[in-house]
């Protein structure tokens, strides 16, 4: 398959089941909601070492948030429910509770309830106040700038992590420009996050390493500087490869995000140095979710 001069490999991205949740952070203005959201989703690019994958889903206007203030929806993904709950609580406690004027609300109705502010309330040292409003429990925790308002729980649902595609380009700037264009479009799709810095990964990995202590190592088949000395997957004119990883609440959500992302890359096309779109998979052994590139773009 070739779109606008870009070859779409006959391959698939391989993804695996995860647990996910969403939280809504509001503040006096969008600036401070975003600051809190960025802190909460920081150091959360990959479950390999961060314990979770997190990202900002989108900015919410005042009429979309529970307390009528500007807000940001963030999502956190982890391999298991226990780990997700731990990450959520730790991050909420250190990054939202501490952030001026912030409030924190559940972003997923239904699913299994996991603590959001349920345990953060103890920071109130006995001065905290519970309020059950419209069937939801909130905690009002006295803090130095007034009150930190948080919903007690949010919902945890089954999700999919690790959807991806690779952008193979003639130069590094061209690869990055294409990925930026893709991310801009993909951020318009609900229920997905691209957890890596700016949504883009330059260090895609393969499973295993020559070093026994490492579970993953550089994906040498896609490293352009190793073209001559390893079993490469790159043709001579490829000088740079970048990857976009997608976590989503369902396979369909990731399908949509991949479609608009790949399309944005292809819109730049061969004229802008984009040669191929490929994907990372492990022979179907890692995860049950397979995203076939040509089917997605059909």
């Amino acid at each position, binding site marked *: 398959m070739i779109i606008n001069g870009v070859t779409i490999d006959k391959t698939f991205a391989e993804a695996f089941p995860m647990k996910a949740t969403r939280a809504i952070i509001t503040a006096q203005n969008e600036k401070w909601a975003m600051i809190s959201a960025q802190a909460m989703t920081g150091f959360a690019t990959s479950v390999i070492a961060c314990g979770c994958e997190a990202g900002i889903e989108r900015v919410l206007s005042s009429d979309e948030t529970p307390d009528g203030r500007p807000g940001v929806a963030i999502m956190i993904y982890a391999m298991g429910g226990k780990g997700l709950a731990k990450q959520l609580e730790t991050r909420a406690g250190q990054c939202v509770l501490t952030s001026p004027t912030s409030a924190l609300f559940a972003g997923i109705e239904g699913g299994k309830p996991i603590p959001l502010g349920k345990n953060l309330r103890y920071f109130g040292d*006995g001065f905290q*106040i519970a*309020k059950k*409003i419209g069937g939801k429990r909130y905690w009002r925790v006295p803090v130095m700038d*007034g*009150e930190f308002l948080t919903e007690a729980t949010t919902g945890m649902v089954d999700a999919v992590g690790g959807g991806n595609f690779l952008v193979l380009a003639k130069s590094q700037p061209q690869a990055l420009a294409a990925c930026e264009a893709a991310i801009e479009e993909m951020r318009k799709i609900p229920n997905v996050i691209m957890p890596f810095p700016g949504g883009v990964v330059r260090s895609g990995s393969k499973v295993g390493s020559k070093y026994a202590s490492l579970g993953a190592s550089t994906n040498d088949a896609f490293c352009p500087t190793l073209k001559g000395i390893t079993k490469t997957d790159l043709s001579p004119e490829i000088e740079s490869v970048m990857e976009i990883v997608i976590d989503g609440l369902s396979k369909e959500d990731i399908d949509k995000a991949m479609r608009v992302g790949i399309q944005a890359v292809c819109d730049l096309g061969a004229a802008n140095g984009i040669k191929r779109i490929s994907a990372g998979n492990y022979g179907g052994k890692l995860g049950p979710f397979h995203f076939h590139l040509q089917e997605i773009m059909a």
Partner: protein
Amino acid sequence: MSALTFTLKDPTNQRVDMSPLVCQKLQGLEIDAIAAIELQNGKRRLRVDELFYITGKNAQEIIIANSTDKLDFIGKELDGGTISVLGDAGAYLGMQMKSGTINVSGDTGLYAACEMKNGLLQIDGNAGDFLGGALPGNKQGMKGGTVLVKGNVGQRAGDHMRRGQILIEGNAGDYCGSRMLAGTIAVMGNTGRYLGYAMRRGTLLLWNQPQLSATFNDCGSHTLAFLPILFASFKSLNSRFAESNVVFNRVQRYGGDMAETGRGEVLVRL
């Protein structure tokens, strides 16, 4: 299917225990069986059809017409469905109700919403003393749900209240929120003496400055984020509480009762 309607034939001098006539107990019963139910009336037990004309079939929608303040325990332990009382209701209206809706077009007696667990109780007239309170000797009053009173309420509204919300469009008598454990009482009108007497936790949300005891301490003026969410939850009510012009988030906060744990609060609109 039309609402199951009980129309009181004649005003009764003795009090009537209406607790058998709730939706879940009448569901699936034929009219003859309902008519044969015996109600305690003073020291006598009378068949339902001796006291009421019975029309309609839908037991999930009960109407009690020509009601008077002699009809006690209306909607006791109600678990789903709707009871509409046309007229006044006696004592213990909606006592321990679990879910569903009760509407009263007139006034109610003592202990309305006593130990109520959930659901919506709306009183268009006035309510008597101990609204949402606990039975004498019991330690916990209303435990959930919403009570809306369009008129005034008597003394000790929310006595021992544990959870839920009582919304009063009119005035509240003395000892409003006394011995409160938690929950919210909102009063648009005036409040009497000894507001929040011995309250441990909970919120008294007031539109007018109350006369406060010395055991309530001023915590200053504040903008509280939970208030808009609380007001938003009133939107579905047929009440002045649902009107957008009553919404506020700026309050003077008083903490108390300091003679108790002092974790309760009186919030007065600024």
